[in-house]
């Protein structure tokens, strides 16, 4: 049955909400009357009586003294005998259903109200939200790329270097590689006796601290086992929470990149709490950060371990628990890139159901602290595991943060990318969007943060058709401790990333520059909201870099090629790392020492 609706803007200025609802009501056949905004309450009551409407929708922003005005309006409606036949609803900023009910209205609608919701009220039926509003689907950011090279000179050089790496590693293994294979066997084994035997073999390949964990139950001094009671209480909490989770979407257009947040508070339970709130505020993916000592220690501990400092310890139990709590439509990345447990991390992540991992020999050995030779052997195996478990991985260029120029970091990234393609894996390019030492000294960002970051994307696209996921996090070294500045710089870098049509971004919280304690949940929401808002602001509009972006992109490609020529000429990729061809000591890159002299000849 069609209804007659009176729309009343009590707000002196804003009646756009009512105009939208009027349009929606008319489209489905209801008749509407929109009153002008300057009528007195008594005049409005007279209009309701005269027009014999079924429903009155009032728009009013809540402010000083407004509740009294609205309460009086309802009293007048009562006195006029209208309440039996006419339904009254209130909508506007700061209006909630509860507040409207307290004031005597039949319904209340806040600023997020949809036209559908208002129509449902007018028609006297229950509002069933459009399920599409909360629909989030995992996106494979590699699927639309063929990885074809556009620069054949660079492809030829990369193929030569890939041959060097595969030849050099062909007769080598390491304790890390062996542990990874034992870990696979442990996962496959159904027999406790076999498992115990495998764990003995595993412990023999670990550092003494981890060995003592398996033999005597010792733990790292900054960790403790979560108790049975804590685990039970957490499981109850999560099971309850899962039932009411609705995932938000940050993107405004199909061209906006998917958004990852990084977690690693130290405690898997706090991590999961952060993951759930990030999901609720629209994060598309989450990235596991482990502690730096974990990357330098041979072997993994066991059990539900919490850590009192930054970085959440990788154990099979921790990762499986985290995975169990992540929404099935949210991507999960476990970083394996920089340590002596790289292949085993990929194995555990793969078995736990991770979607993505992270591997880079150049960064891990020049900025991450692992011996170049060891990481080369381990990374080749890790990449094979990534291919086996169908986990694409990003090739991060964090060595730029130590001072390595972008072109050298990119040369290393492309070497690992080509190696991955040869081994059947799906690499993702991860240039940094950062205010790096190179640009601070060189002045490329003296005027703006747009051109040099854009040059990186343009340059990489001149070389290969591959997915790009700037990180990590975007805007690195542009954040301050102020939450507004921090959220804004994240959002602006997100807008740039979107304008450049990259596939994904990693964003920080607004605590990025704060080093005095753990990141808070509220700070995570700050940057998710800011990113959502900037996507809304720009829509399909774009940021236009200056001419410098193209010039710098061409320079980058030339310099990358020069570096690759030197590495190819050297004939030994590992020695090139030691010799600084992909970043030297003056630039802040130091070949790592973790795992040095541990390579085993087969």
């Amino acid at each position, binding site marked *: 049955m069609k209804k007659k609706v009176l729309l009343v803007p009590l707000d002196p200025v804003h009646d756009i909400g009512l105009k939208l609802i009027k349009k929606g009501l008319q489209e489905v056949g209801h008749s509407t009357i929109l009153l002008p905004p300057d009528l007195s309450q008594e005049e409005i009551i007279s209009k309701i009586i005269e027009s014999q409407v079924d429903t009155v929708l009032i728009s009013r922003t809540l402010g000083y003294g407004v509740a009294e005005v609205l309460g009086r309006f309802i009293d007048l409606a009562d006195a006029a005998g209208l309440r039996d036949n006419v339904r009254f609803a209130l909508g506007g900023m700061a209006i*909630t259903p*509860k507040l409207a009910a307290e004031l005597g209205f039949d319904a209340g609608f806040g600023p997020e109200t949809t036209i559908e919701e208002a129509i449902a009220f007018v028609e006297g039926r229950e509002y069933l939200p459009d399920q599409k509003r909360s629909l989030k689907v995992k996106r494979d950011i590699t699927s639309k790329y063929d990885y074809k090279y556009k620069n054949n000179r660079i492809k030829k050089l990369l193929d030569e270097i890939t041959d060097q790496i595969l030849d050099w590693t062909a007769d080598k293994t390491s304790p890390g590689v062996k542990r990874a294979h034992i870990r696979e066997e442990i996962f496959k084994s159904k027999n406790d006796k076999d498992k115990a035997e495998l764990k003995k073999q595993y412990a023999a390949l670990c550092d003494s601290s981890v060995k003592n964990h398996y033999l005597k139950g010792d733990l790292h001094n900054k960790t403790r086992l979560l108790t049975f009671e804590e685990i039970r209480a957490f499981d109850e909490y999560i099971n309850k*929470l899962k039932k*009411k*989770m*609705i995932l*938000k979407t940050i993107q405004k257009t199909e061209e906006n990149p998917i958004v990852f947040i990084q977690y690693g508070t130290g405690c898997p339970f706090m991590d999961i*709490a952060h993951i*759930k*709130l990030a*999901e*609720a*505020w629209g994060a598309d993916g989450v990235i596991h950060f482990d502690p730096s000592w974990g990357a330098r220690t041979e072997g993994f501990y066991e059990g539900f371990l919490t850590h009192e400092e930054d970085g959440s310890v990788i154990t099979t139990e921790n990762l499986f628990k985290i995975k169990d709590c992540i929404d099935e439509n949210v991507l999960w990345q476990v970083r394996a890139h920089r340590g002596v447990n790289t292949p085993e991390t990929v194995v555990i992540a793969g078995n736990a159901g991770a979607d993505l991992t992270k591997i880079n020999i150049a960064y891990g050995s020049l900025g991450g602290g692992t011996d170049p030779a060891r990481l080369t052997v381990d990374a080749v195996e890790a990449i094979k595991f990534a291919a086996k478990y169908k986990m694409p991985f990003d090739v991060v260029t964090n060595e730029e943060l130590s001072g390595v120029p972008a072109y050298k970091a990119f040369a290393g990234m492309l070497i690992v990318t080509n190696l991955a393609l040869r081994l059947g894996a799906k690499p993702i390019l991860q240039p940094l969007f950062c205010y790096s030492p190179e640009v601070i000294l060189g002045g490329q960002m003296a005027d703006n943060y747009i051109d040099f970051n854009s040059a990186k994307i343009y340059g990489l696209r001149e070389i290969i058709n591959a997915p790009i996921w700037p990180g990590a996090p975007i805007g690195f070294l542009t954040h301050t401790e102020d939450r507004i500045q921090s959220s804004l710089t994240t959002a602006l870098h997100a807008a740039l990333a979107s304008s450049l049509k990259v596939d994904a971004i990693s964003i920080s919280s607004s605590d990025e520059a704060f080093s005095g304690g753990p990141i*808070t*949940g*509220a700070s995570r*929401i700050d940057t998710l909201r800011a990113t959502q808002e900037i996507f809304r602001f720009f829509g399909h509009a774009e940021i236009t870099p200056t001419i410098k972006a193209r010039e710098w992109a061409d320079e980058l490609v030339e310099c990358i090629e020069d570096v690759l020529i030197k590495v190819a000429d050297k004939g030994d990729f590992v020695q090139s790392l030691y010799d600084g061809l992909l970043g030297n000591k003056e630039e802040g890159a130091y070949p790592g020492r973790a795992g040095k002299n541990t390579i085993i000849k087969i």
Partner: protein
Amino acid sequence: MQDVFSRVLDAIDIETYLICESEDECKEIIYGILNKMGLKDVSIVFIEHNGPGARVRARGYIHKPGDTYGWLEINRRADGQ
């Protein structure tokens, strides 16, 4: 304690994330926190509930325009007036 609050120009904002079932529950909790801090003239500036809880910014006014400003009193005392 009063002297400490008197240095506040106008208000103290508490920004946090509360694990709760609804905005109403969040309000109850945050008002409890403000009350425990001894803040009387309180408002919720912003609240949004999704999934596990609510992002909230709550405010306790110390000095509203037209009040007798504590920070002026302290300034006068410091000048020996």
